């Protein structure tokens, strides 16, 4: 087994750890008095965490020069999609019991749900076009442009979180800062003035 294959297994197993522990806690009824809220909250947080990790890959690669990180980006993105799907399913299934009328009424009263659904919908085309075949079919440039949607999805996810808290915005604020930094880094490295070779080291190489 090659090192990169092994690395992927490590990322895969670690990404599944929260899910396993969540099911473990559910099975042992250690999820508090409102299990629905616990599961919703946990899967929602995991979605935001994996979205942040996904968009962190390129900046980390450039700052620390670890190009190997890019191999794990697809998997991290797919895990964001996976936990997002669980999050939505928890709401549709256990909170609304697949009652679409009640869902429409609820969404009308709680617009943050709509923002969250938008974030999820934005991730769908990214998940579908995540295979090597699709990259080839779309062509690298178009594929890359399409996948900039991940930023919109992440922003919508953070806004969704921000809108639902009553007064303690520290956690959504943290995610917003992380996202702002990562997005800012991308814009900066794209539009930063050209530098003579090696003048700035390889800290902010041009794309």
């Amino acid at each position, binding site marked *: 087994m090659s090192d990169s294959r092994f690395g992927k297994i490590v990322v895969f197993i670690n990404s599944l*750890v929260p899910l396993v522990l969540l099911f473990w806690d559910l099975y042992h009824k*250690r999820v*508090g008095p*409102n299990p629905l809220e616990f599961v919703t909250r946990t899967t929602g947080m995991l979605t935001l965490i994996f979205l942040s990790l996904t968009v962190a890959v390129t900046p980390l690669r450039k700052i620390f020069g670890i190009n190997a990180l890019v191999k794990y980006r697809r998997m991290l993105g797919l895990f964001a999609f996976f936990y997002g799907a669980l999050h939505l399913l928890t709401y549709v299934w256990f909170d609304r019991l697949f009652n679409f009328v009640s869902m429409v009424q609820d969404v009308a009263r709680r617009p*943050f749900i709509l923002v969250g659904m938008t974030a999820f919908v934005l991730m769908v085309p990214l998940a579908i076009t995540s295979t090597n075949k699709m990259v080839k079919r779309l062509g690298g440039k178009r594929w890359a442009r399409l996948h900039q949607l991940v930023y919109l999805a992440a922003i919508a996810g953070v806004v969704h979180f921000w809108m639902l808290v009553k*007064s303690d915005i520290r956690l959504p604020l943290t995610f917003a800062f992380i996202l702002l930094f990562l997005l800012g880094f991308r814009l900066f490295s794209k539009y930063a003035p050209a530098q003579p070779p090696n003048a700035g080291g390889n800290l902010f190489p041009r794309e």
Partner: protein
Amino acid sequence: MEEKLKITEKSVYLNRRNFMRAAVLAGTATATSLLYRRLNPPPAERTEGEKLATATNAPKEEALNNGYAVSDALTPLEAITNYNNFYEFDTSKSGVAYAAKGFVTRPWAVAVAGLVNKPRVFDLDELLKFQLEERIYRLRCVEGWSMVIPWIGFPLQKLLEQVEPTSTARYVAFQTLLDPQRMPNQRTGVLDWPYVEGLRLDEAMHPLTILATGLYGETLPPQDGAPIRLVVPWKYGFKSIKSVVKITLVADEPPTTWNLQAPDEYGFYSNVNPNVPHPRWSQATERRIGEYGRRDTLLFNGYGEQVAHMYQGMDLVKNF
């Protein structure tokens, strides 16, 4: 001979490599598990309180009629003590029990002053000498969940009678302890500390309004507002201020914490009302903790028969 030696070396090398990989896998998985546990802690264990003797209990029929008890199933103690909104300790409902553990409630005194003839500071032991009763009330949180809690306490009316409000007193203001040493989350700015609440005098004098000193037959756990808290069953839970140290009789409507935080979301009255939605969610239904699905929210939380007369002729949409 040389060949053999090489083969052995390679297998040793592979073994070492596999060992290292197993270690990396186990190590990172353990680290991730610990991180997850840290960020998403399971409910804390409860420390037992002291037993409280209730002197009087109205006969069951009578209690059901006057609202002193409801026939709904009681919410388990585990839920009541592990699912709390008490921002002075933590803004996560599952984190309050842990953060409030060991909260010191002795000595404790409640100062009652303002527009009264006989202002007085009540020591906790004096408060516990009021005739304690059990009251089984529904509690409806503004967030859309509810519980049924067997409180132990006494009517606020009894305490107010002792201090004799003057004729100019029209409202009652309440204040929670302000002590960032003992209530660590008061060091943050998530709310304007100290937490303050208020009632109209007739609401405060209503027989359903109690000062609770216990639940399930024991003294109040810290996370539920130890050692003494207000319980107003027909209003959203945040009106039932916890860990009270000050009660002041005043002439004008006093400021209240959540109203200051978001005036368009939390009104002074905050009577439970399924027909007046919160700007960000509906109040028509609620999740009873421990039940699947949702149940309809009742006007005045089901205490209309006892309290509706106080709001006659009032626009409940305007005075939300």
